[in-house]
């Protein structure tokens, strides 16, 4: 059974055609790879293809379908797409515009300052929240003229990675 799998802006068809021991025949789009793949340590794969030795490290994401993948040159987000993922992806398409209106903390940290309050009209570049981690302060700024719809954290709070801190709404929407 062929799956779809996404990497960067590319979605590829992927199919396991045969597998015996560590040997596998895998089709990615139109290319067939006859290779030797084995998990040598937890999340670490050794792949031999055409004599080349590749080392690939995976971090499993929140779901069993999502991975962060480190190759020698680069780090990628990879997602296996099945029926369920497709459904969620379709459902979310309408919401995507709102991405920029959700201010998430990209790392664990501590809220140092929130110089805005709910209902404020903020303009491009205006600081919404200051988060401190590892002795460094990062400011998160508005990327357009918006209205502060909700503030979900307060000064002194500890936040996790990807935690939603502030919701904005577009000015048009509020009018």
């Amino acid at each position, binding site marked *: 059974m062929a799956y779809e799998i996404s990497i960067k802006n590319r979605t590829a068809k992927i199919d*396991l055609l045969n597998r015996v021991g560590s040997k596998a025949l895998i089709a990615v789009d139109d290319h067939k790879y006859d290779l030797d793949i084995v998990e040598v340590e937890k*999340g670490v794969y050794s792949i031999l*293809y055409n004599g080349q030795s590749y080392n690939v490290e995976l971090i499993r994401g929140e779901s069993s379908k999502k991975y962060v993948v480190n*190759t020698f040159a680069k780090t990628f987000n990879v997602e296996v797409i099945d029926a369920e993922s497709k459904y969620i992806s379709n459902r979310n398409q309408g919401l995507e515009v709102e991405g920029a209106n959700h201010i998430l903390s990209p790392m664990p940290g501590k809220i140092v300052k929130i110089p805005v309050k709910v209902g404020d009209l903020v303009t491009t570049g205006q600081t919404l929240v200051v988060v401190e981690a590892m002795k460094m302060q990062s400011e998160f700024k508005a990327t357009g003229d918006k209205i502060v719809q909700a503030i979900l954290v307060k000064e002194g709070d500890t936040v996790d990675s990807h935690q939603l801190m502030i919701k904005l709404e577009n000015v048009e929407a509020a009018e």
Partner: protein
Amino acid sequence: MIKKVLVANRGEIAIRIMRSCRELGLVTVAVFSEADRKAMHVRYADEAYCIGPAPSRESYLNIDTIIAVAKQSKADAIHPGYGFLSENAGFSERCKAEGIKFIGPDAYAIRTMGDKITARQTMIASGVPVVPGTTEKLSDEVKAVEVVNQIGLPVMIKASAGGGGKGMRLVKSMDELIPSLRMAKSEAMNAFGDDAVYIEKYIESPHHIEFQILADQHGNVIHLFERECSIQRRHQKVIEETPSPLITDALRTEMGEKAVAAAKAVNYEGAGTIEFIVSDQLEYYFLEMNTRLQVEHPVTERVVGVDLVKEQINIANGLPLTYRQEELRQNGHAIQCRIYAEDPDNNFMPNPGTIKHITVPLGLGVRYDGYVYEGYEIPMHYDPMICKLITWGKTRTEAIARMRRALYEYKITGVKTSIKFLERIMDTPEFVEGKYNTHFIEDNHDRLFTTKPCGIECEDMALIAAFIDYLDKLAEVQPPKYTEELGSNWKDFGRKRNVLRL
């Protein structure tokens, strides 16, 4: 003689200090904040005591608690490491009052070198060249104009109590002078509670070169040559090396003598560093003194063949220096890369998190000073540096090749790091040729922030590994269907799983 050492620090430096203590047969005492119960220095030490909550000022900066632990554990000396209390004159004084040996200089030396105007005055009096500028606190704006007329533009306004770029202003034209002066004073007052500022000539293509010194309690002072630290990002050192590719033997000798004179001027005791700023024309000026062990001390250790922490303890024991100046030599070349948990592709945003997997570079000529381990969660409260990688080579070329090899071997997943960024520096012609100054990262911005391409094949390998992992995890979770597996048993299933039916 010292028998038990409390290390008032955390991270790689705490472990590095404990290693030398262990080699000397000394008992080690760790202190840790509540965020650090699982930290490696707690595991490494002979004894360990909690000193308070995660924020530094409630734990690693809490003098009373640290002194109390030292007394309770009967430690007879405290090593402050770098950062935290290492340059706190009050802490040095307090240790002395409590009869605990502070492994470092006394309060007088720390205070004199801590205030930049006093330090400048002391250096001028000792014949150590300082950057041309005011020698006293500037309050008179007319005087400021006079000084600038005398030394010429551009100039730098700096806060006397300063550090970390706060209260600093670059002035390129005369009409910026007065507004910049006022802003600098106001910033200095806000940041340090002291509005004293001074003016220095701005050196256009500065090189940052520092000298390691050692001074015993009997007035003997030696230097252990220089470290070149010009690869900096936002005034933070990124890569250090020794010998410096810039300076000559004659200049090395001369600057070394000045460094020794600087240490003698404050009756220094212990290990310290004299930082100089050097122009392209090899004019050099005293910048500041760090009255503690530096992050970059390993490059000196490797090339000179001295264990600096052991020398610190030797000095703290009141013994004379182990070496005479004429016995010391630089042997080969060493480079250090600092590796941070941060995302160089996203403005170096700090990236605390849990280490999933780590492969440490090893082998000939590689030293790794770190503290994280698999499963360790790097706390968000402290410095993002996770390790220092030091390579040695017979020549600078070999040291660079070895650093490239070490960075290639170093694999860490779970947090983003600056490894790829450092690899790109190792490939940059200006660095390879040893022709760089503190503007290096700025000057090479495009090259340093361009990620290597990963071709379609490399991308496909990433896809394939994720896909195989996904299928195998799926097969583990889903038991065989009854209809299909009827009559077979688990052993069969295990055997067949290698040939997956989809």
